[in-house]
Each structure stands twice: as C-alpha cells, then as structure tokens.
C-alpha cells in the first residue's frame, strides 16, 4: 500500500507542494520489494536511494559547490552530463571523483530527472576514470535509477515493453560490464529487481551473463593472469615458459638489466637477456652438422592479453633429405636376443582397435629445428651475440658453427617480422638475393664479434 502511495505522489504533475512536505521525511518502510531478495535486510533509507549508497556527509560543502556550479535545468545543452564529469575531474580522474559525480547527481533531484542520459554519459566516461573494471562502480551507477517506478504493475504493462528507454539503458550498462568481463554480483541482481522487476530485459541480460560467464571462465587452456609481472625478467620468464611448452626446459637469466654510470660520466645500460633451452634442444644442437649455419631470427611477437612481447629464436634450416640420419634404436632394446615373452620395448597402442587409424593424410610441414629461445630488452645484434656467447658455455658446438643474424628492423612491426620470404626451391630469384644481403651483413657482424 505504501508503495502505491509513493507512486501516486511521483506520478502527479503537481508535485511541487507535495515534494516539500515529503522530502524531509525519512520514509520508514523497510520494504522488501521482491521475494527474491528476501535474504537481504534493508536499512531505512530514502525512497530512491538503493542499498549501495553509503551516505557519508564528509565533504558536503564541496559537493554543495559542485551542485551550485551545475548548469541550470532549462539550459538545453547537449553535453550537460559529460560536462559535469569534466568539470569535477579537472585535477584528477579517479574512482573517488567519479563516485562523487554520481553522488552529486543523485542528491540533486529526488526525481533523478535525466538519469538515462546521465548513465549513458557515465558509461562513456568510465574508461577515462579507470573504473571500467570495478563492479562497485557499476552497482553505484545502477543505483541512480529510481526504484520501483519502472516495475510493471499489471499484466498489460508486463505484456508491453514497460519504460523501454530505461530498460535499454540498463541493458547497455550490463553489456558494458560484459564487454569488460565483469561478473555482476548479488547486489546487482537486487538492484535490477528493485528497479525493473523480475522479468524485465535487464534482468534477462543479467541471467544470460550469469549463465554464460562461468561456462567460459576457464575455457582457456593457456591462461594469462590479468596482472602481468612488472619486472621484465619475470615477464620474460613467464612468456618463455609459456611458449616453450616443455617442463624440462630451463630458463636462464644471462644478463640482468642494469643501468650504471661510469667514472667518465657515460651512462651504460645493459638490457636483460633471458633464454630458455630444454635438454632435448641441447641434444639436437649437439647433433647439428657444423658445416651448416644456424640462424638467430626475430623478433617474433607474442601477445599476453593486451601486451605484446617479442622473442628471438636460434634455429637452423630444415635438414635436406639426403643428410637425414635414420634414428637407430638401441640394439639392447630391439636386438635378436630379446625375450619374446618379456620384451624390453613394446610399441603397442592399447587404446586402439584394429581398424582404428587416427592419423591424418597430410604431408608434414618441413621446418628447421628450434635450438633455443630468448627474450631481451634490446633487439640489437650485439645483445643477441652476447646471448649466443653465453649459450656456448652449455653448447660448445656453437663455437664451430657459423651463426647468422636475420633480424628485422623495427621490432614492433609484425609484417616485416613475418615477411621473410626465404624459399630456396620455390622462388629462386627473390630468395637468395635477400639471403645474400642478410648473410653479408651477418658475416660482417660476425667479424666484428670475433
């Protein structure tokens, strides 16, 4: 009954007198508007203030000032609310100032006139204030909607799209949450039920989010933490172990980042070099034919959510078929003196039936082996040469193998990184030329190194 009375009050156009009588009164109903939220208890509060509001009156005079600076209502400017955000946050764009603007708006007018426009403006401003991933702020913004006004009361209202603009606005707010990957919480649900009712479009959107988000939350088999390590060495460690995909591989920090000032006043800064190599790769490199060169290639991009890091490879050209050695099994395992009943080596795939054939009818892609990977702060040749020098400690064969550098300038550009067209057989006119140039350069640098 009380709710209906308030609705009458609000709907009436001759509110001005009623409002005066009504405003100072703290409405004493601890109403629980839906059976859904029966587990929540609400403190007595203002009619349109939701539970998300904390009413601290600490900087009231400052707020008052902002309210006074607020343009008049009959000012028909298009950018009123954007302007409000801009003016309050001249000095700092933080969560606190954002919250203050929202508070100012909701305290200004009991009917929250223009709240849809305000919410759209606030949604647009959220990334600027750095609060786009904050569920509390979204709840606070949702709290700007007046409560109980948009809840359909009878079946005709339920049948039609009740207060469509407001519902669209609520859906848009939830959609922005969805786009930033924020899951709504119980408070959001309670607010939505209070504002729009149990079967409204925003409520449906909420239900959809709550259904699909947990389904796909752990879908990524290679998860990346949202907060990446700040230290470049830690970041390199993380990315290298991610791309190596080998638990045996060991990460070595060949050089720590260092900035030093010598006695002559020159600033020396050495970039970090972090490399990874697995025992398998070490064994492969030991078997490498010393007459064929190895290449240091890069930079190749790797994306970890929003950050792009670059890595370098030590690799060789694919081994030509005439040089390929057949892997010989250990004669102790397959020799003729093996027991027939207790063989040392048994290659049976017991999961398969007789007719099963899971292989694919394709030719394998021929690619050169990768011997080591590294990430470094500076992509110049001297740094990478230092990496190769340090690799020689564990791989002595590198001292005898010619090493060429195939580095692309401008480490940010992917197209150049990917654009190396080295096709020995396929296009003989373009490939070797480019190769020749890079090799010449490389040989020069090799000479400089030694």
């Amino acid at each position, binding site marked *: 009954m009380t709710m209906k009375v308030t609705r009458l009050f609000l709907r009436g156009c001759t509110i001005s007198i009623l409002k005066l009588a009504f405003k100072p009164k703290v409405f004493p109903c601890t109403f629980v508007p839906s059976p859904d939220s029966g587990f929540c208890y609400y403190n007595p509060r203002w009619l349109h203030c939701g539970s998300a509001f904390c009413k601290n009156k600490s900087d009231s005079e400052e707020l008052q000032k902002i309210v006074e600076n607020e343009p008049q209502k009959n000012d028909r400017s298009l950018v009123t609310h954007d302007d409000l955000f801009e003016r309050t946050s001249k000095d700092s764009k933080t969560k606190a100032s954002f919250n203050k603007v929202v508070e100012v708006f909701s305290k200004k007018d009991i009917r929250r006139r223009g709240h849809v426009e305000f919410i759209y403006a606030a949604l647009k401003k959220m990334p600027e204030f750095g609060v786009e991933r904050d569920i509390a702020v979204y709840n606070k913004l949702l709290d700007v909607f007046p409560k109980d006004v948009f809840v359909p009361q009878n079946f005709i209202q339920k049948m039609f799209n009740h207060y469509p603009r407001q519902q669209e606005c609520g859906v848009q707010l939830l959609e922005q949450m969805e786009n930033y990957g924020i899951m709504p919480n119980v408070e959001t649900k309670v607010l939505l039920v209070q504002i729009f009712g149990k079967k409204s479009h925003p409520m449906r959107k909420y239900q959809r989010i709550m259904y699909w988000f947990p389904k796909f939350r752990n879908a990524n088999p290679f998860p990346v933490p949202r907060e990446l390590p700040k230290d470049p060495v830690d970041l390199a460690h993380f990315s290298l172990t991610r*791309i190596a995909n080998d638990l045996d591989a060991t990460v070595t920090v060949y050089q720590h980042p260092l900035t030093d000032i010598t006695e002559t006043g020159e600033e020396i800064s050495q970039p970090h070099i972090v490399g990874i190599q697995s025992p398998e790769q070490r064994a492969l490199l030991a078997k490498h034919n010393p007459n064929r060169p190895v290449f240091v290639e890069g930079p190749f991009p790797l994306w970890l959510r929003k950050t792009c890091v670059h890595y370098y490879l030590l690799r060789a050209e694919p081994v030509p078929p005439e040089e390929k050695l057949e892997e010989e099994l250990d004669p102790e395992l397959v020799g003729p003196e093996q027991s027939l009943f207790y063989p040392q080596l048994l290659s049976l795939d017991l999961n398969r039936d007789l007719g099963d054939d899971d292989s694919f009818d394709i030719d394998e892609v021929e690619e050169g082996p990768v011997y080591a990977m590294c990430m470094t702060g500076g992509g110049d040749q001297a740094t990478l040469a230092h990496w190769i020098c340090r690799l020689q400690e564990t791989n002595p064969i590198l001292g005898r193998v010619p090493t060429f550098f195939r580095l692309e300038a401008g480490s940010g550009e992917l197209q150049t990184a990917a654009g190396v067209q080295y096709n020995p057989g396929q296009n003989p006119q373009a490939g070797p030329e480019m190769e020749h140039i890079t090799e010449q350069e490389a040989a020069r640098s090799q000479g400089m190194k030694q």
Partner: protein
Amino acid sequence: MSLSRTMLKASKGACEIFRRRQFQPNLVILSTRTIYERDYRRPGQAPDTRWPWQKIRFDFAKGLEGISKHFGLLKDEIVGHWVGPEGRPMLEHILEQSRVLWEFRGPESLRQWVVSSDREIGGRSETYLKMGRNNSTCMLYGTLCSVPPRDGETIYSGYCTLRSKQYLASFDRKKHLDLSSFNTLHLRIRGDGRPWMINISTESYFSHQKNDIYSYFMYTRGGPYWQDVRIPFSKFFLSSRGRIQDQQHVLWLDKVNTIAFTLGDKVDGPFQLEVDFIAVCIDNAHTEEFAYEQYKRNPEV
C-alpha cells in the same frame, strides 16, 4: 543519446552526395557475400535499387566458359555417383575415421578462402592472406583496430575473419559438407597468443536462420611450435548476429557450409595466425552430445 541522433540526421543531408559517391555498391568486392546474397548496408548508404538483371553481366565468352565449367562439374557428379558417395569408394566412405577438409599446399589452396575485416563496415582493421614461409601453410596476418566507424550507429568494431568459400556444385547449387560421422574438429595452427573464434555455419531450412552461426573459442599458445587443437563439435554454441541465443541447439553436421576464423579480442595491434590443416576426426573417448543445458528451465524464461 536521442539528441545526438537528431544532430546526425541534420548533418546527414549535407554529406548525402559525398556518401553516395563513397559507398557506391560493388565498387570493391570484399567478399563473395556481395555476389550471392544481399550485402550488409552501411548506415547512410543508399539502397541498391537496381533490378536483378542489371547486376548480371551478359557476355558471350562468359557464357561459353560457364557452359563448359558447369557441364564438366555435372559430368563429374554423375560419374562420381557410380564410384560411391561423394565420389569415393564405398569402403573408404564407411571406414574413414578422419578426413582432412582443407590443407594449404600451394598458392591455389588460398582460393578457397575469403578474407574480410571490419573494412566492410567502415572500420580500420587490415587483413591479408598469403602462403607461409615454405609454401605449405597459410598465413593470415594484419592489424586489428577496434575504433568504431563514425557513422552514428555502429558502436563496436574490430574484427578480422578468414572464411572458407561455399562449395558450389554444377549450376551454382550449394554443396554441403557431410561431417555427421565425425565428432571432433582438429586443427594444426600456430598463433601469437591471441584468442580466436571458430565459426561454423550450416545450411538451414528457414531464411531467418541464415545468420545462425555455431562458434567456439580457439586459444593459441604462441611461440615457434605448431599447436594441435581439438575441439569437439558438441561444444559449439549457437549465436545469431553476434548474440548468443537463449535456446541453444546442437550443431547438426550433415550440412556444413563454411568454417571461419574470427579475431575480435579488442586488442589493437598486429596479429598473425598460421594454419597448417583443418581436419575432422572421431574421438571415441568423447561421448558428450551437447555441452549446454537442454532442459526447460523453471521458471521458464
């Protein structure tokens, strides 16, 4: 919001002439969709009022070429029927446990694919397709840019897509892939750590289902090694026009039209994806029919 819309309307008249010149239909064909179906019409673009026959190029040489092509295809179909289903021997058809749908060996294999990006809707992403380093893989690369076009209606942008072309039988009839004897999609890819989405579109009976797409995510590890991705078909969920549907349905594999890779992770920057082959296989350990609930919810939504 409503106010800004009226502003747009006011300014629309001024640049109407400019727009018409800029968005001339069929100036640049970005995808085959422009030829076979009604294309996406950008906001502000004048509708294509030409009659259907005005869009056809009547050409004698083209007609002769078409006759030889289509009757050749028809002959292949008839002869193929004598050999067995889909032109393969019956025994092979019954016993096959894996099938390679697409592999990239040579530049002509790229002709079965269509590259598109949000250029179509006025965005700024760029996508290119080329053969990989040793001419045996397909390399999709480019730059993603998620700045929406300033046409007043579009609010999201930033996607890049690689889509297989619709298979066509003789006389330009649609040909569908029948994958109903398989349950897993197998891809060998090499990415740069970005998440991709795999979209499968199937033939449907009603025309309002033509935008239905079954999708699932493909996460790449990055790095120099190839990555084998196996995705059971039961995990694909139904979406239409970019919205996940409430009423989900399992992907019916008897009439698969196209498969597509989409990148749209809202991260501006260069990307690359190398695809070695795309195959389907039977995973006997996988018995799930559909990964999402099918029961009626209570209260029913």
